[in-house]
């Protein structure tokens, strides 16, 4: 009496299902997407109030301020990346499933980027407009955010996996991730500043793209290892 051989989904199918599940969870809890966006808008609104509304000053500090705001907003949403799954036990199901855990980690990062990075890119022109940025500069800002938030989601998932299930994980997560995110911030903000000063963009964009590729190749494995350790 042989058991009927069980059909496992392929890696790609499982990854797609995971992303779909995370996206439908977000539809049920829109706050997870909206709160970081509001946070991004609030931080961007704080600076002109703090340093004064002069247009040249805003144009000058805009790229840096928006990038810092984006970094903090990404960090805010990373905290809950694995938390709900950890609490309701679905993380353990991912751990024991026959699909490679690194593929599942990649799926979580993709879902995270779709629900945090991409919305940031979409709302960034509105905020950039209030900073008196020209159309060309706004375009570059969106491009750098597009490439940079990919790296942030992937990098952040390592940190989130390391701190999942720890008390007071939020502050720790920031301490782990912010120093590592420094290259993304530098190149993201500096590229926009350079364009605003009338310089070329290619170098900075190439760097951001290369860094995103590096993170795509490292992060799923590091996240998987970290998830295994956190759930031992």
């Amino acid at each position, binding site marked *: 009496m042989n058991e009927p051989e069980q059909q496992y989904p392929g890696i790609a199918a499982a990854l797609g299902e995971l992303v779909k599940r995370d996206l439908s969870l977000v539809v049920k809890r829109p706050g997870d997407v909206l709160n970081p966006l509001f946070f991004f808008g609030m931080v961007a609104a704080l600076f002109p109030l703090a340093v004064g509304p002069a247009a040249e000053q805003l144009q000058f500090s805009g790229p840096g301020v928006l990038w810092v705001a984006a970094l903090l907003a990404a960090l805010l949403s990373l905290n809950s990346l694995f938390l709900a799954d950890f609490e309701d036990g679905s993380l353990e199901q991912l751990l024991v499933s026959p699909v490679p855990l690194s593929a599942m980690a990649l799926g979580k990062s993709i879902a995270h980027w779709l629900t945090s990075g991409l919305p940031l890119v979409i709302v960034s022109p509105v905020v950039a407009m209030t900073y008196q940025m020209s159309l060309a500069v706004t375009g570059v800002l969106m491009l750098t955010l597009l490439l940079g938030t990919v790296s942030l989601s992937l990098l952040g998932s390592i940190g989130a996996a390391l701190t999942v299930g720890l008390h007071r994980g939020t502050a720790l997560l920031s*301490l782990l991730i912010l120093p590592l995110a420094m290259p993304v911030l*530098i190149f993201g903000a500096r590229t926009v500043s350079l364009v605003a000063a009338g310089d070329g963009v290619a170098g900075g964009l190439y760097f951001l793209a290369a*860094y995103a590729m590096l993170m795509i190749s*490292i992060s799923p494995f590091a996240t998987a290892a970290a998830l295994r350790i956190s759930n031992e």
Partner: protein
Amino acid sequence: MWKFFHKLASPPHFYRIAESLLPWFAIPGLLLIGYGAYAGLFVAPPDYQQGDAFRIIYVHVPAAYLSMMAYMVMAISAGIGLIWRMKLAHAVSAAAAPLGAWFTFLALATGSIWGRPMWGTWWEWGDPRLTSELVLLFLYFGYMALRSAIEDTTKADRASAVLALVGAVNVPIIHFSVEWWSSLHQGPTLVKKGGPAMDTAMLYPLLAMIFGFTLLFGALLLRRVRTEVLYRERRKRWVRDMILANTGASK
């Protein structure tokens, strides 16, 4: 050869070997530092541009070099611990982190003190090496914070090892991305084509300081790993036997 390493990996053996190795690091290290400090402060001629202010390099350069060296030691032993599940390697990286953080702090403090007369400011964000040292300090803090946040030692070892490895991949990237900023820092004078661009009367004390600091780091590391091993094995039989034998108490 392999047998030696296997023996070394066992905590009681390491504990004993480290004790006998310690003076071999500590004594030459302190002698070199003593010579380097004296020759650097009193014998070496003042710099034709910087005057006596340059003498801070005798602390600054070794500290900066060791801040990175300690991170490498930490990351490599974390990798060894993660791959071969070697507990001693984890103990080494746990012991290396605070040392590295202190050397980083020392490099930052001396760099800042040197910057005051040279640049006219205590801190200069435009200097890439100062900035990347600061990021390195935060990387050490993150590593130590993660370690102390996890109560279970084995789990803390493995989680922090993953972080150390991810950090090790990132450290050169952080360094070079910060370097893209226009630099105020002195160009490399020591590691350069055609030999160091420095007078021998200045160079020898510096080399003595670098080797002395490295040996001192080795000695401190051995000392810290010994303590770490002792703490981790505190419930083991060999520790109890050793303490009983040392104190002469009866069972």
